[in-house]
Every structure is written in structure tokens, then in C-alpha cells.
């Protein structure tokens, strides 16, 4: 039974791709109006989890419920309607390269609403003002830095005032100033708009500094979940290795291999 406070509920989700099991019974509750960080080592399927929530992928089994709708069971049209309540910030920004900054932010409004042009103009400028890029409205995506690209993408993803926003690795490859700006924006947007935010990242410090709840995924399972303070005191060695960034531990430094002596030709009969 989905908790009333949960906006998203994943229960026993199993998902495989190309014969590899990505998730093996993952269950996560994402509370309404809060920032939830999904963390884990690279390649554990964090982005895949967002695509499952957004209905771009279907699980092999298990349930994914978003705002009371079972996503895998939705018909195409219903799914597209549900997505109008979602915003997603992609790792690359995913701006439309043939449209200016202004037109990128205006795009969802032009497609989904019948607002008059002057109102779209004002809303776009307000969204760009919120991310500090009102002055960059005439630029093309190719003229933006990586941090600016993500801020424009953020403005676009909140253009229709969504209930849910998903951030896919928002801090990756950002300089400290751009990262600080993004941290502030995510926090401010959540508090001012009351958004439910899902933040996928492996940047531990930044994520824990803004999230209300976090869960860590590894080996296809949730290995730890709770508030940032609870996670810091989590008894699991694997959780502590990830949070502290230790190079060796339950997640081994070496890729599985045969004995080194065999590979170097040192075993058996060397004289």
C-alpha cells in the first residue's frame, strides 16, 4: 500500500537489460514535496531508475506508482498526460540545438498550452530570471557554458510548473561556482514551488547537503536509506565506503581476475 505522503512508490522493481540484471527487487518511497537523493556508484542504474519512473522503460516486474498512477500500465496517451506534470533535467541539458534559449524555455508552453504570446514571453522571462539567465535569452545553446546549459534546461523543466522534477547527475562536470549555483537553485525551487524532487547523483557532499532523504543503490538493491544524518551513522560497510569514498572495501578496487602470478607467468615450474 502506497503511503499517502509518497508521491512516488517503487515496490520490488526488477529490471534487466541485455541479459544483465540492473535492479533486483528495489523498493523506494519518495515523499511528496521533499528532495530525495538517489545515490550510488557509477553504472548502478541511477539514470535507468529515473527512466523507469518517467515511463521511458518498463520493469520486468514490480510496481511503479507516480501520484497514484501505475506507470507501466498507463496507455501511451495517459503516460504523455502524466509527463506534463513532470520535469526532468538531463545530464547533458538536452536543449534543442536549433532553438534559442528563449524558444527552448517557451517550447513546453507552446506545445501544451494556448497562452497568448505576450503571456508566454513574460513567463519565459520569469523562469529565466529564476535561474539568473534572463539576459541570455537570445543566445543559442552552442554559445552557453555547461553550467548555463543546465540552468536553461532547469528553467525549461519548470516552465509548466510541474509537481515532480527529476535531476539526472546535475553536478557532474561543473566547476565549484556552477555547482554552488545549481545546489542553491535546486533548494530554492523545492522550497518556493513545493516540488517533489528526485536527485540522482554520485556527488555525496552536495547531494546530502540539500536532500531531505537519500537512498544508496548498489548491486541492484537499496543498501541504505534514510535522512542524511541516519546515513552518516549507517552500520553497513558498503554504505560507509561509498559515503567516505574509500578506494577498497566491500566494493573491491580490483576487477575480478585470476591470480596475478598466473597472468605474469610466475606460477609452477619457474626456476
Amino acid at each position: 500500500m502506497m503511503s499517502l505522503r509518497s508521491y512516488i512508490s517503487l515496490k520490488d522493481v526488477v529490471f534487466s537489460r541485455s541479459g544483465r540484471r540492473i535492479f533486483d527487487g528495489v523498493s523506494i518511497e519518495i515523499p511528496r514535496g521533499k528532495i530525495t537523493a538517489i545515490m550510488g556508484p557509477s553504472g548502478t542504474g541511477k539514470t535507468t531508475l529515473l527512466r523507469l519512473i518517467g515511463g521511458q522503460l518498463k520493469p520486468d516486474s514490480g510496481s511503479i506508482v507516480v501520484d497514484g498512477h501505475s506507470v507501466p500500465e498507463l496507455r501511451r496517451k495517459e503516460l504523455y498526460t502524466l509527463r506534463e506534470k513532470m520535469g526532468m533535467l538531463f545530464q547533458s541539458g538536452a536543449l534543442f540545438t536549433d532553438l534559442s534559449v528563449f524558444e527552448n524555455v517557451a517550447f513546453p508552453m507552446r506545445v501544451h498550452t494556448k497562452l497568448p504570446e505576450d503571456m508566454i514571453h513574460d513567463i519565459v522571462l520569469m523562469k529565466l530570471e529564476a535561474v539568473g539567465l534572463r539576459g541570455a535569452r537570445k543566445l543559442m545553446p552552442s554559445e552557453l557554458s555547461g553550467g548555463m546549459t543546465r540552468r536553461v534546461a532547469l528553467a525549461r523543466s519548470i516552465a509548466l510548473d510541474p509537481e515532480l522534477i527529476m535531476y539526472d547527475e546535475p553536478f557532474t562536470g561543473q566547476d565549484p561556482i556552477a555547482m554552488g549555483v545549481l545546489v542553491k537553485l535546486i533548494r530554492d525551487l523545492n522550497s518556493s514551488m513545493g516540488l517533489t524532487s528526485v536527485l540522482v547523483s554520485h556527488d555525496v557532499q552536495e547531494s546530502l547537503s540539500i536532500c531531505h532523504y537519500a537512498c544508496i543503490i548498489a548491486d541492484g538493491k537499496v543498501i541504505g536509506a534514510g535522512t542524511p544524518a541516519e546515513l552518516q551513522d549507517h552500520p553497513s560497510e558498503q554504505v560507509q565506503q561509498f559515503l567516505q569514498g574509500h578506494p577498497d572495501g566491500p566494493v573491491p578496487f580490483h576487477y575480478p581476475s585470476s591470480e596475478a602470478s598466473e597472468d605474469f607467468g610466475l606460477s609452477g615450474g619457474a626456476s
Partner: protein
Amino acid sequence: MIDRIASFGRSGVDIVISFGRSGRFLAGVLSGVPRPATGFPLLMKQLYSVGVLSLAIVVVSGLFIGMVLGLQGYTILSDFGSEAAIGQMIALTLVRELGPVVTALLFAGRAGSALTAEIGLMKATEQLSSMEMMGVDPLRRVIAPRLWAGFIAMPILAIIFSMVGIWGGMLVGVEWLGVFEGSYWGNMQASVDFWDDVVNGVIKSVVFGFVCAWIAVYQGYDCVPTSAGISSATTKTVVYSSLAVLGLDFVLTAVMFGNF
């Protein structure tokens, strides 16, 4: 031996799967009625990039092919004292065969490869995914206008190609080699039938346009979203389109002109 048979079987299954996927893809693109207010501007933009921007290569190629036909036709026909039939020969060759086929091959090389690369790059940079997450179906917003633009542009380009080719043939045959102008146009008018030759040629180019555009957009949409994947998809577009055009041309020619 068993491995080879298994590998051969796997290839066959892969081909059938690929055909099935492209069929489902096409059904997805064509299903649903586009809204004129949003669909028409998108279609016009694609008609410009797929059709208008292909005009230069089509016109220049048509001119030279017409000129070569004039030169070769004159050399061969004058051996039999029939050089007056050069207009008839050029027109029938262009309208029935070379117009639709060469335009389709040029289209696949210029516009088809560009379509595949553009859609592939949109996929690699997550633009298609972001569109989906905004509740916008990329099949209808991105793919459908490009498919329809190819379908509409191809017959128009083929007609222009044939017209320019006939004019190029006249430049060589009449202006340079001295064939009587009245014979050039008169024989052409007497022997080219509107329905049997012109309309059949246009039908061919409509079929080629549809197939080339389908292959181009499918390869772009289905490509592996990496630089190597996009490069491979672009190559496939040109190769598959060319083979499909030449194969279909034989089938259509047999049906239209085979007198079975």
C-alpha cells in the same frame, strides 16, 4: 559447420526483427492526425531543408545527365540516320527511368544521410528523450514532418530533374550538334504518353520518396547513440536506400512497362 548455420539463422532472425521494428515505427509515425496549426509550419521547414536545399544538386545533375544523353544518343542514332529521334530517346529515358532513379539516389546521399545524422544526434544528445519527458511524442513532432517532407519533395525533384535533363539534351543535340529543333520537340511530343510515361515515372518517384525517407528516419531513430553508431546509421541509410531504389525500380518497371 553448425556454428555457421546458427550464425546464418541468427542473421535471418535479426533481419526479420529489424523489419518488424521498422514497421511498428512507421505505424507509430503515421498514426494520429497531425494538428494543422503546429504540423504545417514543421512540414514547411522540413520541405525547405529536404527539398529546396536539394535543388542545386538535382538541377546540376539533371543538366549534365541530359547533356550526356544528348551526346551519346546522337552518336548512336546518327549511325542509323535516326538522329532526329534524339528528343524522344532523351525524354523517355529521363521520364521513365533516370529521373526517378537518379533523383532518388541523389536524395538518399544528400537529404537522407542528413536526416539520419540529425535524428541520430538528437537521440545522442537526449533531445528526443527530453521531448518525451515533456509529454511531446517525438515520432509525431520530429519524425513525421521529415517523413512527409521526403514523400512530397521527391516527385517534385524528379520532375525538375527530368525537365532540366530534357533541356540539357536540347542544348547538346539541337544547339551544338545541329539536330532540327522541330524534330527534337515534335518526336518527343508524339511519343511520350502522359499517363503511360509521365504518370508512371511520378508514381515511381513517389514510391522511392516514401522508401528513402522511411529508411532515413528509421535509421536515425534506431541508431546506437554514439558517434560510431551515427556514422554507421548514416552509411546504412545511403546503402539501403540505394539498393531499395534499384530493386524497386526493377519491380515497378516490370509491372508498368513489362506488358505481361
